[in-house]
């Protein structure tokens, strides 16, 4: 039985990449043809069984999928309330869900005969995942990264360089993820002939939000069959952090037509929503146009994009994938937020109770799940997307606590 909101099944986006009023293709004329070409190649590839077979083959033997679905018994007991299960994307090769998407897009790059890969990165996980697939396929790789993020995610910068990628610091604007995206778009406009732009989230112009979702939906498909096998039923609640929102869409999408499965997206509340120092456009923003699509944005009253703040570089972005904007308006997914402080508490609690160090991004999802689970009965099931591991963050966490490693 489909969800009551979606008679006939969930059906977005339309052929133009619109999620109702969101999404679309707001780019300068030069990029229209490369986007058309990409959309055509993707539409062709996704009809081929052989394409998906090759994709899944790589996910199994190179990435290490399926990722486990782990019942975090100690964390659940300590917290009280519902059972918390963790979808262990942190155990993927390169340590996060980002690799699922880069494997898929790199296959398309090869198919299109492109020899050069560019990517933007915030926390560095998508940059590492792009550098990784480029190394494997012998493609040149250039990663744009805000100079502030380079500072706070130094280990990932070194990993990218070891993998043969060139990391270009972006010093314009707020020197974080949004500015890295601007720079990557500028690079693409200049080198469209030989360059494939691997966007790391369900953001950017069509067809990216749909394509990235389709590559990340493996997370939800696995979780769905794993929980049915282990618990004999579907979960009551899914929880994921939302920056651009690819790990969240990846988990949620295969469940959208299941009416009894609730979903919770957790944005970064930074120093607190009331301070304005956060990265929660769904909570506080309004619809506008940035980076090729229409979505909720953090902007001033005159439409200038605001600087954001989050302890987590991967969530430090003023926009959000357009599909999340639609899911919010439809009421299908509920969105909440966790502050830096709440995320850090969840980070430590998960580390101590389960021996799992989460990425600071994923710690936001854990924080949201802990709170929700406390309000739910003990036999309820909450599945949290543990989208990445925290190795990259231990320096930053130590620094916040006055330690130097």
């Amino acid at each position, binding site marked *: 039985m489909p969800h009551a909101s979606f008679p006939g099944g969930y059906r977005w986006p339309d052929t133009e990449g619109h999620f109702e009023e969101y999404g679309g293709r707001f780019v300068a*004329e030069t990029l229209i043809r490369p986007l058309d070409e990409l959309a055509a190649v993707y539409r062709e590839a996704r009809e081929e069984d052989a394409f998906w077979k090759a994709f899944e083959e790589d996910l199994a033997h190179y990435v290490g999928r399926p990722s486990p679905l782990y019942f975090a018994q100690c964390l659940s007991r300590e917290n009280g309330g519902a059972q918390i299960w963790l979808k262990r994307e942190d155990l993927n090769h390169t340590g996060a869900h980002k690799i699922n998407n880069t494997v898929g897009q790199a296959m398309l790059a090869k198919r299109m005969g492109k020899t050069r890969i560019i990517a933007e990165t915030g926390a560095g996980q998508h940059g590492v995942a792009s550098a990784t697939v480029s190394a494997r396929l012998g493609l040149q790789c250039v990663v744009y990264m805000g100079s502030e993020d380079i500072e706070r995610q130094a280990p990932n910068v070194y990993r990218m360089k070891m993998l043969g990628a060139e990391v270009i610091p972006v010093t314009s604007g707020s020197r974080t993820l949004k*500015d890295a995206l601007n720079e990557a778009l500028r690079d693409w406009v*200049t080198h469209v002939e030989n360059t494939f732009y691997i966007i790391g989230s369900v953001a950017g112009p069509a067809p990216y939000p749909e394509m990235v979702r389709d590559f990340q939906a493996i997370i939800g498909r696995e979780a769905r069959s794993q929980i049915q096998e282990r618990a004999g039923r579907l979960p009551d609640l899914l929880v994921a952090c939302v920056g651009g929102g690819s790990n969240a869409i990846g988990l949620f999408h295969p469940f959208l037509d299941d009416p009894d499965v609730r979903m919770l997206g957790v944005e970064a509340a930074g120093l607190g929503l009331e301070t304005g120092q956060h990265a929660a456009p769904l909570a506080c923003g309004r619809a506008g146009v940035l980076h090729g699509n229409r979505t909720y944005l953090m902007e001033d009253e005159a439409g200038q994009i605001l600087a954001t703040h989050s302890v987590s570089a991967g969530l430090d972005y003023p926009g959000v994938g357009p599909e999340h904007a639609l899911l919010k308006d439809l009421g299908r997914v509920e969105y909440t937020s966790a502050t830096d402080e709440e995320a850090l508490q969840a980070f430590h609690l998960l580390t101590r109770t389960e021996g799992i160090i989460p990425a600071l991004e994923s710690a936001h999802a854990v924080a949201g799940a802990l709170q929700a689970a406390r309000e739910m009965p003990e036999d309820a099931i909450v599945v949290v997307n543990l989208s990445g591991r925290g190795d990259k963050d231990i320096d930053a966490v130590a620094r916040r606590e006055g330690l130097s490693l």
Partner: protein
Amino acid sequence: MSRIAGRFAQLQEAGRTALVPYLTAGDPEPAATVPLLHTLVRAGADLIELGVPFSDPMADGPVIQAACERALAHQVRLRDVLDMAAEFRNDDAETPLILMGYANPIVAMGVGTFAEQAAQAGVDGVLVVDLPPEEADAVRHALIDHELDEIFLLAPTTTETRIRQICGQAKGFLYYVSLRGTTGADRLDMEDVAERMKCIRTHATLPVGIGFGIKDADSAARAAELADAVVVGSALIDRIQAATDPHAAATELLQDLRAGIDTADHPGGAP
């Protein structure tokens, strides 16, 4: 007849190619803009493009991005740019003025409000860089309601089918982005531009301008061989930024470009 069409008709009659300078409004400070616009007209500008500063100017190179950052540091917003346009229009009833910028400030103001106030301020045309025709419906209707010309970009990557479609929707003139890259880039291949312009001319009834990569008398002259208008932005901002007397610097560059353009044979491709 709109001010833009009228100006191109005059130029056509005189056998001249238009010189179209671009400035970012509010750069380096808000009070500088209107006097600079008048200087540009005195130095030979036929039309003027006034850039609306945006925090994330994705299609622009480092020069215009820096100009946006300087203007935004002075809190220059779309509303202020419209005030500058109106102030310019008080003393200049002739020179067509085109606003160029990104979609979000217009969306934030509301497209209807924007079109109404832009028309009141004496603006003649609007070019929204990140608004291709497929996404431009709401803006197009608002601009038509207020008799403003919606100007579209054509790029080296634009297919012929699409050139035909855009030519059917554009008003005022067409703006050919003469290279793959951002504004201010330095790789203008005139043979390639000539080839593309030939194709555009078979579909265009409007005048066609060339921009991106024009920086001196020589590049302006070569562009003027092919186009009805030559646009210069980054090179002008660079000169103004480096000069102790911005008015003298702007005048000098525009006079150089004008001289270059006038050595070229006007293509006479426009009606």
